[in-house]
């Protein structure tokens, strides 16, 4: 029990830190780009849910339910290992970012949908009474009000996405978890590297959720 290898080794921590920063950079890149994808694609899904024709509504509904109800890990493997058989091949980083962004877009779509439905019907009627075009009704009246309402909920999904980024290690993206595994595999000091990574996640996620709650108080009145 008390042999030396069980003791916390600050040396191992400092050896890991350069890799840690590299990994953090990758994690944050995936998070930022993944968020952008999920925010924009999710909005497209939400608009398609309300398309005037069911030939748009139904396929989009089925596709998004399919993505939302299958595990992200399976999607990652599928995109990374199966698509190349059809000559569609991207780097692990690109594939991973698209996969996580697409996966979360099906959640943000539901958030937008709720936000759009929460805009009072009187706003649609006023837009119609003023003869505003379809495009202006959406871009100038409905979406600004809907998006404002859903910003806190979107933020929650960014935090959830942060916690899912380690899944990208499974296809070899050198994000935080993968870095710590590689480092530990060489030094056999798993405790230090994994602990640093765990603490890093808390240090990012917890203040972010506090920030969100403050934002929520300001936006939702």
């Amino acid at each position, binding site marked *: 029990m008390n042999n030396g290898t069980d003791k916390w080794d600050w040396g191992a921590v400092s050896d890991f830190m350069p890799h840690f920063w590299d990994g953090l950079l990758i994690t944050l890149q995936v998070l930022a780009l993944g968020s952008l994808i999920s925010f924009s694609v999710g909005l497209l899904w939400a608009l398609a849910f309300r398309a005037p024709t069911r030939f748009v509504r139904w396929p989009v509904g089925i596709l998004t339910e399919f993505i939302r109800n299958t595990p992200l890990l399976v999607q990652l493997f599928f995109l990374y290992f199966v698509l190349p058989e059809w000559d569609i091949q991207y780097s692990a980083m690109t594939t991973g970012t698209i996969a996580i962004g697409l996966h979360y877009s099906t959640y943000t779509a539901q958030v937008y949908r709720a936000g759009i439905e929460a805009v*009072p019907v009187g706003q649609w009627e006023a837009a119609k*009474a*003023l*003869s505003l075009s379809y495009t202006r009704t959406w871009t*100038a*009246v409905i979406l600004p*009000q809907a998006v*404002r309402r859903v910003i806190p909920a979107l933020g929650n999904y960014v935090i959830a996405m942060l916690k899912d980024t380690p899944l990208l290690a499974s296809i070899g993206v050198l994000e935080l978890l993968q870095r710590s595994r590689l480092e530990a595999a060489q030094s056999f000091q798993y405790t230090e590297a994994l602990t640093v990574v765990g603490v890093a996640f808390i240090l990012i996620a917890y203040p972010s959720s506090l920030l969100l709650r403050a934002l929520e108080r300001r936006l939702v009145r």
Partner: protein
Amino acid sequence: MSADTNLTKEQQNPAVDGSELIRFDKVVKRFGSNTVLDELDFSVASGKHVTLIGPSGSGKTTILRLLMTLLKPDEGTIKVGGEYLTHEERNGKLVPAGEKHIREVRKNIGMVFQQFNLFPNMKVLRNITEAPVTVLGLSKDEAEQRARDLLDLVGLGDRCDAYPTQLSGGQQQRVAIARALAMRPQVLLLDEVTSALDPELVAGVLDVLRDIAHTTDITMLCVTHEMNFARDISDQVLMFDSGRVIESGPPEKIFTAPEHDRTREFLSAVL
């Protein structure tokens, strides 16, 4: 508070001569099994101020919503300025109108709602300029000038940069009136515009409407429970019951010597 003279001059109401501006022809509107309007016929002459009165559920608001195309009639036709509103003639036959046709006819109609329905994400000035710029194609300067004149008219010239939530209900409703007038409609529909207001704010809104009624030639169609207002601005009062006009006439007659028992009952209950 003086009226914007431009409003009168540039209105270019093609027919202020008392010709027919709105015509309902055998209009039927049902909600489920409930027939709200039953083969309704009525017309409004251009430039007139007409008030619809009657008990709740008698179909008054439905008429305004049909005119604003927020509802579609189940049967019958509606004409505005000689044009079919929800139908168009194609090869001599009357067919349901396309969106483009409806938009064209609808531009002649403005509406003020019970709940104001201002756009909360826009400042007061942009609430008013949004449609003139994007629908009528006015330049930003023109639209803003028009909006400022109208805000002066409704007594809110100093609140251009406020957001709607920073205004009282009465002020919001006055902005909503300015917003509707900025499109220079031939017809202004007023749907219980004072019902959602605190009592002390009603007078300000009614003053503005009275001012507009007396200084412009805009045609007004009002649904209201404010009988004094109806008496004050209307040329004609229509008494509704069960989806039909049961009595109509100038306000002096309706309010002092109603012919129909239902009208007498209704008036004695609300006055």
